[in-house]
């Protein structure tokens, strides 16, 4: 699976304002709603579902990255967005570091395999330090989108 298969480019954000977990998740789901990928009427329900999953354990996977996600019946295929926080967000991560890079995923309840394949893609690309660093330094959504495209075209890593 590639980033292009699930990341909605018009929902990418390069300057998250939020400094806490809930605020960051709200901003990202707002971006997906603005891009018409999340139904406006389902907004609160999606945010609550993601926060509820976070309560079971943080999706802060270390290296300044988090992968908040949920299943939700209002989407008919896996969708996601990427957000960069220049200031960093306290996310109760594995390594205790604040999070600067988010991949938020929403998948239909009956497709757990797609979600795992998206995570495989994200984790494989993140193992490349250059990709990870460039993404965190990206200043515009276009720049983020460009980096994802380059990663899809195997321009990073082995």
């Amino acid at each position: 699976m590639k980033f292009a298969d699930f990341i909605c480019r018009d929902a990418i954000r390069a300057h998250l304002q939020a400094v806490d977990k809930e605020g960051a998740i709200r901003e990202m789901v707002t971006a997906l709603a603005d891009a018409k990928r999340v139904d406006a009427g389902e907004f609160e329900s999606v945010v609550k579902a993601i926060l509820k999953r976070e309560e079971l354990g943080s999706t802060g996977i270390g290296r300044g990255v988090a992968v908040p996600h949920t299943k939700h019946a209002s989407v008919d295929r896996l969708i996601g967005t990427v957000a960069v926080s220049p200031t960093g967000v306290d996310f109760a991560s594995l390594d205790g570091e604040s999070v600067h890079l988010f991949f938020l995923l929403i998948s239909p309840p009956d497709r757990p395999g797609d979600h795992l394949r998206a995570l495989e893609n994200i984790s494989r690309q993140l193992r490349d330090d250059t990709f990870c660093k460039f993404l965190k330094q990206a200043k515009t959504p276009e720049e983020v989108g460009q980096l994802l495209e380059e990663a899809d075209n195997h321009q990073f890593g082995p």
Partner: protein
Amino acid sequence: MSESAVSRTVIVANRAGLHARTAVILAKAAQRFDARVLVAKGLHQVDAKDVLQLMQLVAEQGDALRLEACGPEARQALDELEDLFLRKFDED
């Protein structure tokens, strides 16, 4: 592996499989022990203490995983990890 090497097979029982949060829980548990712990799905073997590596296994519900550990706390590490799989990571 040294004389303290141990291994066992577990089944991914939770519906969502080894996703980000379950990988974090697994890595965190493995990191608590003085042992080298490996997780394998088929021929793909990764370090249980590395979340990014764990997520690359794409371990889905029903998949069998081989846990291997060596070091002073190898057995305790596998007991703990096996328990997480048996409890379905407290999901479902």
